[in-house]
């Protein structure tokens, strides 16, 4: 209780109705957003990966931790949640790990209690690790073509700094219970955490519960963000079916990133069965436009663009990019996702920065965004 009071007294709270962000003294961030029309409360705990960079030796330990962690100490977390119509989902990204619990109105306590359970130091045996690796082998097998294309594009652009968060099954075989415990401890340092609660909740009450939970955790050493390498354009082939182009972009709030995203969405709207992948990040990254049902189309479409196409694509791209961000902000899951993802990378980061960049995008910036997909500036990725 003492830690809660300390946290609340010294918290730098900013209210931008109906949303309250709280910076806890231990470095954790809590954001609560009231969305009274929503049927679901989304509680998402985000842990930045800045303290646990992937290395060839530990490549995939984070992902393995995610699998083992979400079973809970008694291995019955899913059953307990589903019994009440609630669900847990976890994902490992390059920048962070996400643990999402979706509950109905008036079930916030259940979500927080579950998260508390999950953050106990993990107890796991070698046998359990080995069993989970057999499941992850199957997960890797169903890794879809879009993910394979994306992974290859990251390899080409950023080399070892962009390795896929899925991990390397061979490296993961060397994981021990102790190594998993170490990764958990470092990944969940309080200053790495952002807890976002969105949905039909009372802001003050939810903030109190949330800050008591993450604000009370012991602190650790602040790990500075490291600037990653510049991206390298080029061509790469990979296992899988399909093809794509990846624009090399800066941080999520950079106007050039917004332009590349809008350009990719506009190109994709012209090619049936195509996809666009972008995970907002404070670091350099990729905006990928591709397709997995055919082996040609996206690259051709980009290379054959004429100046006469630009005005129409500008309208579509700007609309789609704006809608993409706004759509995230319309559901409790979307809000908790995008705000949590950004907040765990920096307590000042907000999706509105990205939205502003899209809204203020000029025609010339958009055209430059289209050019960022050109062969000599982008990564061309081709399935074989």
């Amino acid at each position, binding site marked *: 209780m003492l830690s809660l009071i300390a946290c609340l007294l010294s918290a730098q709270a900013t209210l931008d109705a109906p949303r309250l962000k709280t910076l806890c003294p231990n470095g954790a961030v809590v954001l609560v957003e009231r969305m009274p*029309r929503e*049927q*679901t409360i989304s509680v998402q705990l985000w842990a930045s990966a800045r303290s646990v960079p992937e290395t060839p030796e530990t490549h995939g330990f984070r992902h393995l931790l995610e699998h083992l962690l979400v079973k809970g100490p008694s291995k*019955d977390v*899913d*059953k307990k949640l*589903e*019994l*009440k*119509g*609630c*669900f*847990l989902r976890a994902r490992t990204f390059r920048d962070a790990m996400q643990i999402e619990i*979706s509950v*109905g109105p008036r079930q916030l306590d259940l979500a927080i209690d579950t998260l508390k359970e999950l953050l106990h130091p993990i107890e796991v045996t070698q046998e359990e690790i080995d*069993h989970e690796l*057999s*499941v*992850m*082998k*199957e*997960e890797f*097998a*169903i890794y*879809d*073509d879009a993910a394979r294309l994306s992974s290859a594009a990251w390899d080409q652009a950023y080399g070892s700094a962009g390795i896929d968060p899925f991990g390397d099954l061979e490296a993961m075989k060397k994981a021990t219970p102790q190594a998993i415990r170490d990764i958990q401890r470092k990944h969940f340092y309080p200053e790495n955490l952002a807890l976002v609660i969105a949905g039909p909740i009372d802001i003050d009450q939810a903030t109190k519960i949330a800050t008591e939970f993450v604000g009370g955790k012991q602190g650790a050493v602040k790990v500075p963000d490291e600037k990653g390498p510049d991206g390298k354009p080029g061509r790469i082939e990979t296992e899988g*079916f399909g093809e794509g182009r990846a624009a090399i972009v800066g941080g999520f709030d950079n106007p050039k990133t917004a332009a590349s995203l809008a350009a990719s*969405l*506009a190109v994709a*709207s012209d090619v*049936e*069965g195509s996809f666009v992948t972008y995970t907002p990040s404070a670091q350099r990254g990729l905006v990928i436009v591709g397709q*997995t*049902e*055919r082996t040609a189309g996206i690259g051709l479409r980009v290379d054959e663009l004429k100046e006469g196409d630009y005005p*129409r694509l500008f*309208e*579509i791209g700007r*609309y*789609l990019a704006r*809608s993409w961000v706004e759509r995230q902000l319309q559901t409790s899951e979307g809000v908790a996702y995008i705000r949590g993802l950004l907040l765990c990378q920096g307590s000042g980061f907000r999706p509105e920065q990205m939205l502003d960049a899209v809204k203020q995008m000029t025609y010339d910036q958009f055209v430059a965004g289209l050019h960022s997909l050109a062969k000599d500036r982008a990564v061309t990725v081709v399935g074989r």
Partner: protein
Amino acid sequence: MILTALAAAAMFQTNHVVEILDPTMDAVDIEAVVRLPELTWHQRGLLEEMAGSLVQDTPTFSRNQIEELASHVGQRMRVSIMEDHIRVSFVVAPQDVESGISMVGSVLREPVFTEDSLKATSEDLQFRRFGYWRQALKGVPFDPPKYTRRDVAELKAVIFRPENVTVGVCGKFVSGQPSAKWAEVESQWQPGRIPRLYDDQAPAKSLAKLESSLSVFELRGPVFTATDAGFSTKVLALFALGSGKAGSLFRVAREKLGWSYRQESVLWPTPTGFAPRLLVVQSDKTDIDKRGETLRTELLADVKTWTEQDRLRALGIAQACMTRGVEYSPFYFHPDRTISSNGADDAFMAAYWQMKTGSPWAPSRLLGQMGLVTTEDMKAAAQEMLAASILKTYPGS
């Protein structure tokens, strides 16, 4: 959203149009559902080509005009086909609702199937590679049919008729406007007599293997209809078997046997009802027949251990899926995904359920019926489903 939306929809429902007003949306979803009868193998192949060629120039609108309207919200008109329906989806800006409905109406009322467009679609369907999941769900290959112009004209006359079409509209519009516009479309629609289709008796082909390194096997239960007395019991049993991470399928195929990362229960529409299906994906293609039988045995054993907790869990998931749009629903009413809760799927479900059952889609009523199902009845339904299931295998390449 769906409950409030449908409460409003009840006020604005005609025989063939369901309006769901949602002033908070900045676009309008128009979903037209075309009922399909049971078709022969040959007719099915031809209809797939026709569905893929629907969005072309019509006598009233050029394709460019349709695309121009679509570009106001950045979405193209989309067409998908299932065993029991064709779905045409069009998203338009609120000020374009009437034009959008006219265009959807034109595409269905007066489609022009040229040899070139049918040939292009046929080539696309042959060379396009869908993911393993979609291939397995469909379960049959696309077989380019041989056909005459007369076959096309007759199939068109049988399928594209006003009485086969139900339209759902969701978003911001003036109440009654979509219904009035659709009535106008119907008034211009003169489909003529229903021809008797030629049946060439060609046997259906099955999918010999997936174009993927992955293999899938499934237990497919007997088809049942929404008007069956046991509908809610069977659907609840399907939730208990294969939805969520504490369901039997997850427990057995993933946790106990370590065979698979993806395993799901599916409620699959057929022209005569719905087929319950349990699908398991795996990287190993050896012995999948044997594994299918082992799965059946293990699942039957697991069902025997079900308690009241399993019933409550299934009910909890069903409620979350049907009222909060949670993604674990087995309602696979689309070629490769379940129905969720957004404007497009809300409009689709409103139209689809009306078309399929003659009654409005009322999730709360179905949930109420599910709530009355006892654990023993749910177990019996699951056991019956598993015992009567046929094993289908789709080995990887």
